[in-house]
């Protein structure tokens, strides 16, 4: 059982961004991707989520054997158990967080079944408290006027409420202060389980002190070029990416 990405290629317009990407995250594990700006990390996240701007030109992504790209609309992928916390979460004016998450949960129920409102709010408040998100946020429009850190916390709240099987967190640590980083990491760690896999995209080794990964991958120009254990993150933090590019060029 795994999230498996095989030979994935994707374009934006005429430009190829993902150039044959391979990655497998067995259920129960946390993998991290690090890589330079523009190497295609967010593209990978959005392609998996089904963003309409990207064209998948080849390869596959499977969730426990289920082919992601043969599902119709992006909402089916979400309901199948994929969650992507976005680097830049969108604002939805006029739709409150409470109604937004409620609609997302309602969409997971069989036709004709109603979400229990009381239970829902209990659960929502519990998770908000754990993430130290003020309960007043329930009636605020999704991400509208939120600070960078508030948006990221709200992404994690959504993840906690939706209980995905595989979660991709795209730079969730960017914009978080030290305290928030701990709170969010605790939130993620609390969800680590043999039944769930994580892909954590980050620029900072520090996050990986809190959310300790099983495997660290390095992405260069639309491909995973190197994988290792958490010490790889330390080396990248200390030495940057030049050596990776040299080594991979040498072996190419």
């Amino acid at each position, binding site marked *: 059982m795994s999230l498996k990405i095989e030979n994935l290629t994707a374009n934006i317009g005429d430009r190829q961004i993902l150039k044959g990407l391979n990655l497998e995250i067995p259920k129960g594990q946390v993998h991290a991707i690090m890589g330079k700006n523009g190497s295609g990390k967010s593209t990978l996240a959005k392609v998996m*989520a089904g963003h*309409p701007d990207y064209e998948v030109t080849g390869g596959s992504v499977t969730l426990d054997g289920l082919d992601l790209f043969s599902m119709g*609309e992006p909402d089916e992928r*979400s309901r199948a158990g994929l969650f992507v916390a976005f680097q830049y979460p*969108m604002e*939805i004016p*006029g*739709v409150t967080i409470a109604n*937004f998450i409620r609609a997302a949960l309602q969409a997971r129920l069989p036709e004709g079944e*109603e979400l229990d409102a009381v239970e829902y709010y209990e659960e929502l408040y519990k998770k908000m408290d754990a993430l130290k998100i003020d309960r007043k946020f329930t009636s605020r429009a999704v991400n509208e006027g939120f600070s960078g850190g508030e948006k990221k916390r709200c992404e994690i709240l959504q993840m906690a409420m939706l209980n995905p099987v595989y979660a991709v967190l795209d730079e969730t640590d960017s914009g978080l202060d030290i305290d928030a980083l701990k709170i969010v990491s605790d939130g993620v760690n609390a969800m680590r389980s043999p039944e769930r896999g994580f892909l954590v995209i980050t620029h900072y080794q520090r996050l990986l002190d809190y959310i300790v990964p099983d495997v660290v991958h390095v992405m260069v120009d639309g491909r995973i070029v190197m994988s290792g254990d958490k010490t790889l993150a330390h080396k990248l933090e200390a030495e940057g990416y030049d050596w990776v590019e040299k080594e991979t060029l040498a072996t190419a």
Partner: protein
Amino acid sequence: MSTLMEKPAAARSAWPAWFQAEQRAALAEYEALPAPARKDESWRFANIKALDLSAFAEATPVASETRLIQASAGLAETSAKLVLGNNALLLREAPALPKGVIFETLEAAASNHADLFKKYFMAQPVELGSRKFAALHKARTSGGAFLYIPANTSVTLPIEIFQWVEGANASVFPHTLIICGENSSATVVDYFKSADRLPALACGVNDLHLARGARLTYIAVQDWSHETTAFHLNSTIVERDATCTALIANFGGGFVRGENLSRLVGEGARSEMFSINPVEGTREIDQRTLQDHVAPHATSDLLYLNALDGKSRTIFAGLIKVEPGAKGTDAYQKVKNLILSDDADPNSMPGLEILNDEVRCSHGATNGPVSAEELFYMAARGIPKDKARRLVVNGFFNSLLARLENAPLRTHLESLVAARLSIA
């Protein structure tokens, strides 16, 4: 069944003789006036074919009185309620009305309070195109709601009025006349509802009058069947330092013509004119407005929101008129069309006529689709596209409801909008 042109059965009319004479004159006027034509400026873009009223007939007394009374439920807490069905009184309740407030049928008020009636009933000239239909209304109106709030009286809890139509091709002529005395305040919710999903004609008039310092929040929840042809002609007069907040929610109607005039006749007067219009299928909502600034230093603020799906149409023609003496006017007019379908047809004609230099005015119309990024984000959380669109529309309307100060009222209207959009 009798046609609209025939006199209603004598036994049904409780109007005083002098008003019955006026009604006969109004009927003659209705017959004499020409039908609106496509070339008339005030009917530009309108579907003139929808104005053929020959299929409609005089309504008979309602058959499902008990059911309609039961279905006349709105806010949890109200100070009074009036229920009318097919132009006749079904129920009047007034558990918490302050002393001196008069709340009864318009028909009763014509006899009991003839002076007030004569002074305020349809006292404004019809300027926005529907003279003919105003004449028809006057000729045929019965039942109706009359509310008078004496000076310095606050009606704290809202007053609700339910006006029903029942039966195929039935015609109703709802009238709401509200007179707010000096420094009085009230909130009124006026529901227009169909007992069934059948074609009907509704030809209604509202007269709102706010004396000096009065405050009125008036909400019209127009929820006729989608097979209904409806005219709603509203006039609001705002005197010195008075504030009127009026919101018209057009949930129903197949063809709806709304004419909303607000005249600011006293310094410091304020009129807020709001409207929310979810339209789909082949429905058409045609609204013409006039913000008439007669007095100086008055404010009018118009905001109309249309969400158009299917092959629906909206027409908005608005005019801000600043009369020569109205210096220091603040006047705003904005219509926003949220476009949900390529076949939808929004028509916006905002307008200004300014005869005084010292004014602040803005007007504008925008058309925009639902943002693809918003839809993607919702999809990424598992929300199907159709539901996501409805949530966006709901949010669009809620942004306007947020401007209502009364929290229980706002929550109630939010739930009506959510129900209208089938959002659990």
